[in-house]
């Protein structure tokens, strides 16, 4: 259906469309997870897929995250291309052995003979009043693990293109979706496209400061950039899109251009994604930076339930705006 007219999809729809297209294209692609079939997940992201592809390919599992992730690893090694659904990113704790000691290492340990083309889709993000065990953004763990790729889409367009690329990838890929973003709309062309893993995207060009932002933080960065604009500061917003492979080049070039950088990610700030990106930039743009690279991530506390407390644990447009202004010497 070649249709050039601009089309808007929600983030959830974009994910679903990517899955449907890949499942039509390749009969080896199947989905497994808790309440993924008729229920279409609690977030309703997968609604309709079981109707089209049947229960053989959209598989409701028991609440056995380790078990069905392990099953997916073996299935991926032997001819299928499973997409595993881990409802909340907090539950990846249960899959670490399967993902890290198995999926990530099979190819290497076997001297390149076995492959594990699987995708784990899961969620991140707080401010949903879901408390400490349903609000974490733990993707930094997987970024640390050789053999895995980690995708952090921030728009419906990126989500669709990156998910299709992830499904076609020959390696285990972990795909984190911000659960607060599912209803957000954005343009998604009807034509087929994929986005290669490992390419950053400049979401907004600017000259005074670089805001590197991932996933849920991209919208925050763009909002802050608007505020900064009004304050006469031109912010560039760069979205790495994949935390691994990491497009260091684009990040460093932007930093060299603007000479000031804030790195934002919704995972915990300490020992998290912002640390890697900040230190890559601090080293790569060392001679061009006018100020220390500033990091903004989740506060180092288990996510509290109470709304006024939860709200201060993550960066907001306002806090980013203020930090950026201060970094530019205009506070």
């Amino acid at each position: 259906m070649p249709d050039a007219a601009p089309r808007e999809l929600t983030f959830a729809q974009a994910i679903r469309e990517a899955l449907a297209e890949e499942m039509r294209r390749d009969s080896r692609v199947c989905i497994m997870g808790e309440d993924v079939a008729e229920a279409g997940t609690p977030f309703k992201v997968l609604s309709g897929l079981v109707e089209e592809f049947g229960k053989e390919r959209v598989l409701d599992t028991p609440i056995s995250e380790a078990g069905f992730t392990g099953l997916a690893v073996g299935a991926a090694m032997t001819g299928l291309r499973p997409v595993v659904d881990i409802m909340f990113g907090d539950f990846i704790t249960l899959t670490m052995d399967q993902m890290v000691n198995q999926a990530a290492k099979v190819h290497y340990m076997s001297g390149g003979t076995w492959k594990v083309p699987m995708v784990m889709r899961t969620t991140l993000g707080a401010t949903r009043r879901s408390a400490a065990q349903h609000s974490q953004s733990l993707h930094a763990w997987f970024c640390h693990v050789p053999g895995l790729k980690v995708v952090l889409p921030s728009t419906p367009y990126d989500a669709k293109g990156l998910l299709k690329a992830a499904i076609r990838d020959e390696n285990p890929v972990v795909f984190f979706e911000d659960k607060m973003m599912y209803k957000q709309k954005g343009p998604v062309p009807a034509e087929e496209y994929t986005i290669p893993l490992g390419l950053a995207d400049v979401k907004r060009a600017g000259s005074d400061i670089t805001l590197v932002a991932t996933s849920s933080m991209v919208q925050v960065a763009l909002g802050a950039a608007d505020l900064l604009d009004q304050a006469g500061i031109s912010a560039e917003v760069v979205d790495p899109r994949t935390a691994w492979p990491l497009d260091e080049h684009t990040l460093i070039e932007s930093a060299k251009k603007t000479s000031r950088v804030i790195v934002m990610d919704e995972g915990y700030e300490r020992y998290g994604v912002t640390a890697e990106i900040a230190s890559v930039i601090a080293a790569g743009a060392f001679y061009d930076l006018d100020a220390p690279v500033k990091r903004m991530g989740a506060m180092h506390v288990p996510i509290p339930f109470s709304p006024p407390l939860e709200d201060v644990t993550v960066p907001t447009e306002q806090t980013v705006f203020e930090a950026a202004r201060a970094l530019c010497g205009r506070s």
Partner: protein
Amino acid sequence: MTTAANPTHTGSAAAAESWIRMYRQMVAIRLFEEQVNELYTRALMPGLAHLYVGEEAVAVGVCEALQPTDYITSTHRGHGHCLAKGASPDRMFAELLGKEAGYCRGKGGSMHIADPATGNLGANAIVCGSAGIATGAAFSAQRLGNQRVAVCFFGEGALGQGVLYEVMNLAALYKLPVIYVCENNLYTEYTHYTETTAGDILQRATAFGVRAESVDGQDVRAVHAVAARLIESARRGEGPAFLLCNTYRYTGHHVGDISREYYRTKQEELLWKTERDPIKNFGAWLIEQNLADAAVLERMHAEIKLEMEKAVEFALASPYPGVEQVGEDVYA
């Protein structure tokens, strides 16, 4: 919740008192949950909550057989366990609203209420997340020789988690005083348990050396009788047990789960509500046995309703924690 002797099998006054207490407790849970639903519907509660309505006899029957110093662990569907173990509704509502007066200073919310004063080690939003904790509490009890017992409540969905079998094996090996209470309400979130559970549930315990029984979870007397027996046996050092309680949740998986026809029928719901309601049936029995009359029970309902309304008011009027508290309690 009750005193050392558990004379509920006799026709004594103490037994009668115990029956009435259980009835009251079940009604309290139901009316508590009605308020929760109300708070959600009126958009006064942040987030979601998982109601225990329909399953009251399980928490109450089991907790009536526990001492105040005994331990429980609970789940995402935890209000019932929490109340049955002795928590007060006002601080619970405050917690559900994220207020400072809540059991967790607002930091936990519906899925994390914990209360050392009543031996409540905490609700848990990870399915099967507290099986280790309950087993560990039993381990402490054994090693410290304090005669306590730990009860681990969980839904049948937790049967999918391998750690349950790991800790049952440990409990059997060390003969720990822990009771695994499986609340089989037929569904996990939106999937019937038969689609996710192969084999035989009771055998899943006995295979690990944990003796297992099942009981009608809608019959508080039956639950209490078998729970009391297992608990006292565990307390005597005879090791762990598994109790399968067959029950049903009347409402959605959570307060927002309104359209349920794609996973279960309205007739099924109706059947449980009309034929198998634990409160109604137990009330009828109390009247039949001349342990209460209808008017007394009605008055009780009204009283409790008022109590719940007051508790909600308290919670609504309570302040949120100050923002500076966000960084407190990360480390002890």
